[in-house]
């Protein structure tokens, strides 16, 4: 299962990519595979505040609804509008085309509290 080494990961199966001062956020390959065919993504709006470990949106597959938990706190500065019309991108390109939001972290980024690719991989293989 693909896990970009340079990303950080949350226990709720989000990935975080550092881009200058901002953080780009999406869900992992493992998460999309557990969900199955994604048909709907509900995301916040630019300007909304997100808080670490709190829901910032949700993603729905044919079968189920899954809340998205913010891996960090901050302000939403970009939202991937393409997911509105093409939610299937979450299945097809979870680390690239299906990024969900870009957050400008408030204060300390919280990145240090997240897992490395290796740590995340260890966590999901324990779950299985």
């Amino acid at each position: 299962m693909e896990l970009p080494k340079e990303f950080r990961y949350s226990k709720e199966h989000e990935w975080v990519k550092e881009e200058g001062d901002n953080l780009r956020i999406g869900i992992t390959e493992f998460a999309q595979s557990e969900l199955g065919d994604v048909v709907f993504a509900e995301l916040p709006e630019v300007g909304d505040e997100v808080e670490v470990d709190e829901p910032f949106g949700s993603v729905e597959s044919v079968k189920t609804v899954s809340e998205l938990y913010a891996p960090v706190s901050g302000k939403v500065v970009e939202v991937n509008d393409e997911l509105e019309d093409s939610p299937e991108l979450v299945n097809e390109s979870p680390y690239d085309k299906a990024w969900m939001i870009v957050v400008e972290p408030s204060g300390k980024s919280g990145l240090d509290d997240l897992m490395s690719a290796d740590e995340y991989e260890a966590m999901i293989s324990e779950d299985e």
Partner: protein
Amino acid sequence: MDQQKKTPLYEEFVRLGAKTINFGGWQMPVQFTGIKKEHAAVREAAGLFDVSHMGEISVKGEKATAFLNSVLTNDVEKLSEGRAQYTMMCYENGGTVDDLIVYYLNKNEYLLVVNAANKDKDLEWLLAHQTGGVEIDDVSAFYAQLAIQGPKAEEILQSLTDTQLQDIKFFRFHAGTSFAGVDGKALVSRTGYTGEDGFEIYLPASSAVDLWKACLEAGEEYGIQPVGLGARDTLRFEAGLPLYSQELSENITPVEAGLGFALKIDKEANYPGKAVLKKQKQSGVGRKLAGIEMLDKGIPRTGYEVYDEDGENIGFVTSGTQSPTLGKNLGLAIVKKEYTDLDQIVYVEVRKKMLKAKIINTPFYKR
């Protein structure tokens, strides 16, 4: 973790890379390749399902017909050899014990096919009402059950048997059928839970793997797919077929669920719930099952509450998803009768937001 039961096909699921879930105590495949792909295969070609988790109960003896007529809502007297019937068992208050199919095997010999999660409860219910001259046995462990569904199902299955499948009409069956690897011991009926043409096959558990493999091989050129419970649910949902615990339950009567055709209120035999159900059928019900289509963006899900424009609670969603065939966000909901007219605007509460929807006709899909 409780030991989950496995069907004879479990090893095949693993081999095919299925994702499995616990369903009614059984470890069952939820999907093989993906719900949308499996769903489309059944609508356009054919799908193969393992439904061996379903319960089978044998009822026989000189009083079997009279007994069943005193516990089932449909009229067992209408059955004859080779015929099956969709029916219910109800509580005295009209709530539903289970929905099931009864097969007439021989005079005073029947096979009841019940929901996996309800099997023990059903058996207890039957035993509690048992009369003399009736033998009731749980024969679930003996039977495996496969379903082959879709426009190509008959052609594929016909290539595996000498039994003339075209002679088996809807809700009829042929017992003593031979298929590849199953020597005269299968029962095949033209029934299903997908809204497509197709068959369900009951056979000795020991032959299930052979028939499963034969169906996949014979169906390959037609595009057959093994199908999990995920697509089984979306297929039955589009076809407006009820799922026990959602559209039917101990709190929802068959009349409320729009299944009055399976209740005979004029038959002579008395059965639990008859008085209540008769009244509901004759004078109407205060709430009933209706189809809803979301107008705002959002997907209705089981248990979501439904409101009118003044914010008064008028019911709840029993099932909902994005229909793979229609691409619309649809739901089935039990709502107050006065809100069930076509195009009536209602509101579904989705994550604390009131989203607009309208009442539409069911079934959502008809072949």
